[in-house]
C-alpha cells in the first residue's frame, strides 16, 4: 500500500515523514522519527505510557494515526526540558524519587505538564483523577502525587 506523506511539527520543529495508513502516531514517533522517549505499554490507550500532546491536548499516541497529525503540533517528552535544564516537573520527579523503573515516567511527566497547564492548583484528588490514565506499577503513586503537588506549588510561585 502506498505510504502517505505527512508534514507536521514535533516539539516545535518541522518534521516530515512517510507512513502507512495503519501506522499510529506512536509507531511514527518511535520508528520513523527515532523519538523513543514515548513508550508503548499496551497499544490500546489503557496505560498512558505514550502520552503526548496533539495541538495542546493530551492524547495517547497509540490511539492517533500518523496521518492524523498533518499540520498539527505534537509535543513529546523530548520537548519538555529546554536545552539548558530540566523542567520543574522533571526536577520534582527526581527530588521525590517519584520513579523506580522509569518506563511510565515520560508519559506521566507529559500528563502532569498538561494537568498543570489546565489547572495550576489541583487538589490531590484532582491530580489523582487527571493522572488515572497513566499506569505506574512500581511506586504505588504516592511519590508521584507528591512530586506533582510540589511541581504545582513551585510553578505557581514562579509565575
Amino acid at each position, binding site marked *: 500500500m502506498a505510504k502517505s506523506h505527512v508534514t507536521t511539527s514535533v516539539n516545535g520543529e518541522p518534521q516530515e515523514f512517510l507512513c*502507512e495508513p*495503519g501506522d499510529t502516531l506512536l509507531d511514527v514517533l*518511535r*520508528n520513523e522519527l*527515532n*523519538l*523513543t*522517549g*514515548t*513508550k*508503548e*505499554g*499496551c*497499544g*490500546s490507550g*489503557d*496505560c498512558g*505510557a505514550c502520552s503526548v500532546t496533539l495541538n495542546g491536548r493530551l492524547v495517547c499516541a497509540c490511539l492517533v494515526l500518523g496521518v492524523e497529525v498533518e499540520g498539527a503540533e505534537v509535543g*513529546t*517528552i*523530548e520537548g*519538555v*526540558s529546554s536545552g539548558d535544564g*530540566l523542567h520543574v516537573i*522533571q526536577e520534582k*520527579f*527526581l*527530588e*521525590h*524519587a517519584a*520513579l*523506580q*523503573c*522509569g*518506563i*511510565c*515516567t*515520560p508519559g506521566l*511527566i507529559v500528563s502532569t505538564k498538561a494537568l498543570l497547564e489546565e489547572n495550576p492548583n489541583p487538589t490531590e*484528588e484532582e*491530580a*489523582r*483523577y487527571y*493522572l*488515572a*490514565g*497513566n*499506569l*505506574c*506499577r*512500581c*511506586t*504505588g*503513586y*504516592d*511519590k*508521584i*502525587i*507528591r512530586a506533582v503537588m510540589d511541581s504545582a506549588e513551585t510553578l505557581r510561585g514562579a509565575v
Partner: protein
Amino acid sequence: MSEAKEFKYIGQRTIRPDGYDKVTGRATYGADLSLPGMIWGKTLRSPHAHAKIVSIDTSKAEAHPDVMAVATFQDFVTLQSESIAGGEGAADVLDVARNCLADDKVLYHGHAIAAIAARTERAAKDALALIDVTYEILPPVMDVEEAMKESAPVLHEDMFTNGYDEKPSKASNIATRVEMKMGDVDAGFADADVIVEREFRTPTAHQGYIEPHACTVTYSEDGQSMVWCCTQGHFDVRTLTAKVLGMDLGKLKVIASEIGGGFGGKTVIYQEPVALVLSKKSGRPVKMVMERDEVFIATGPTSAAKLKAKVGIKKDGTITAMQGWMAYEAGAFKGSPMMPGVMTMFTPYDCPNVLVEGFDVVVNKSKVAAYRAPGAPQAEYAAEMVINELAEMLGMDPIELRLKNAAKEGTQTIYGPKLKRVGLIECLEAAKNSPHYQSALPEGQGRGLAAGFWFNVGGQSSVTVNMNPDGTGTIVEGSPDIGGSRASMQMMAAEVLQIEPKNLKPIIADTENLPYSQGTGGSRTTFATGMAVIEASEKVVAQVKERAAAVWNVTAEQVEYADGVARNTAGEDAMTLAEVCKSAEKTGGQISGNANINARGAGPSFAVHICDVAVDKETGKVDVTRYTAIQDAGKAIHPGYVEGQLQGGAVQGIGWALNEEYVYNADGVMENPGFLDYRIPLASDLPMIETIIVEVPNAFHPYGVRGVGETGIIPPLGAVGYAVGNAIGRKVEELPCSPPRVLALIQNG
C-alpha cells in the same frame, strides 16, 4: 557492626544517577534499540489451551516476499531434561525451550508455536496467518484441584510426582509433593483452647510491569551473537539462551537495557533464542517486542493457589500448633513457588509444632514466573487471616497476639536454621504506635492488619570500581537496576571512598565486561551487589594508601585515609584522592578495585501493614481509605527508594487483593488480557501510602542492609482481605475482593 554508626552519605536522599535520562526520555529500554538492516519478528500463538500439534506447515509463509525467516521448535538443538540455576530458582532447560516454542503439544492459550521475521512489524504479524497448524484439541485442565484428580487429563505423560518414597506408577499433574514439619502438631492442637481451620483461594495474577518483553539481537557468521533485552538478569539470559541453542557462553553477549519493571517476571527467557534463530536464518538483526495481550497470556503470572490453614491457641494467646496445606498452580510446566510458600507460611510465629504440606501442580495456563516474594503472599495470606480471626475470637488486639508469638532471634524455622537477629517485634511495636493504628476507625469502615516474612537472598555479584585520573570513578556492576539501585551503589562506594556520590558513576556492564553476576531478584542487589561495591571500593582505598606511601617513602600502614584525603601519619604530607589518582601513572599504573563475591548472610525482612477500607454495600466496590506499611530495612541506604519499595509492594498487594485476576472461559482462553479488564491500581484508586522504616541492622552486611524489595507485597493480601471482612461482617476466603465477589458475600453471607 555498631547500631550507632555515623554515616556521611548513607541515609541521604540523593538524586539517582540514572534519573536525568529517565525524566527526559533518553533512557533506552528493551524496545528502544534499532540496528542497521534490522527486521522484525512476531510470534504465532496457540488459540487452544491444550492440544496436540499434528502438523505445522510454514511453506506459504516462507514463500511470502516480505518474510525473511521462520522459526519452530525444530530449530533448537536436541535437548535433554536438565535442571539449571537461572532466574529465581532452578529451571529445566527442556521446559524452557518448549515454552519458547512448543514441541509436539500446546499447553496453554498463548503458547508460542512459531515465529516469523519480516521487513516490517506489520508484515511479520500479517504473515503469521500463512502458517498452517493442525491441532488435535484436548480437554484443558484449568483448576488446581481438578488437575490433582486421578481422572484429570494429564499434561505431561512423562511426569511422575516427586516427593513420595516410591515413584508413582501413573503419570500425574502433580509435579512435586513436599512436607515440612517440626514438633508434634497433634499434641499442639490437643493443648489448644481454640482451633480455627479455614480454606482460601487466591487467583492467577500477573506482575503487570508496564514494559512488554522486548529484545534486539544479531547473529554473526562466526557464531558471535548479541542480545539486547530488558531483563532482571542478563547473565541468566545468556545461560538459558546458550543452553537452548547449544552455544558457548563466550559467543553470546547479552546487554541489559534499562528495564521497565519486572517484579520477578523478567528473570526468564521467551523471545531471545527465537530471535537469534531468526537472525541466523535471515542474516539480519531482529527485533521482537511483545504486545500487551501476549504479555498477559504467555508470560508471568504467579500461581493461583488453594490453601488451608489451621491454628491452635490457648486462651492467653499462646499459639500451640500451626498446620498448612497448599496446592499451587505451576502453569504448563512444573515449578511453582510452592516451596517458598511452605517455608514462609508460619515463619512470623515462634511455635514449636508446625506441619505444612505443599503440592506443585501443572495446569493449562502459561508457566508461572517469579513474582515479588514468590509463593509467600498466598501462603502467608491464609495464615494471617486465621491469626486475625483467632485474635477476634479471643478478644485480643491483633498486634498483642502477634507480639506474644512473634518470631525473634533464636526462633526455629520450619526450613532448618534458627533466625538470627530480626525486626518483627520492632515492626509490631512501630505499628502499635503508628498514627494510623492510634486513630479511630471511621464509622462503617473495616480495618485489617497482617505481618509478612521473606528470606531475602545473597548470591554472586561481580563489581569493579575504576578510578579516573581526576579522582572521579566508575562503578561497574552486573545487577540490572530496576528501582534505583544505582543510587544505592553510588552511595555505598562514596561512603567507603569518602567522596561525593556524584563523582562516582554506576553502570550496568554487559556479560563480556564482568564475570557472572546473578540477576536482580530475591531482594539481593543492595545487599549482595552492595557488599561487592563496598569490597571493591575498599580495595581502591588500599591502593590509594599504597600509592601515597610510595610517594612519601613510608609503608601503607603509615597512611591514613579519611574524608577523601590520604595522610602520612609519620609526617605532614597529605594527598587528596584526586591527587593520588592523577599521579597513578607514576606510581604503578591506574587504580581500580574489584570484588567477585558469593554473598552469604542475607537478613530476612519482616513487615507489618495496616489497612482501612470502605465498602459500598450496594455495588461491593472496596476503597482503601488509609494504609500504612512498616518494614525492617536493616539500614536504609536511600530512604526514598526504600519507601518506594514499601509503597510499591503494598499497592501491588492491594491490587492482588482487590481486583486482579485472570478470567478464563470454558475452553481455557484468557478473556481479560489487557489493562482495561485486568485492572491494576490507578492513582485515583489509592490514598497516600504511609511508611515507617524500621532499622534492625543485619550483622552480615557492613552497613546493616537487609533486602527490602519483596516483603511489602506479602501483608496486603491479609490486611486488605481482613479489612473487607471486618467492614461487611463476613469471612473473606477467596481473593480478589472484587465488586461481584464482595456483593455476593454481603448478600449471601
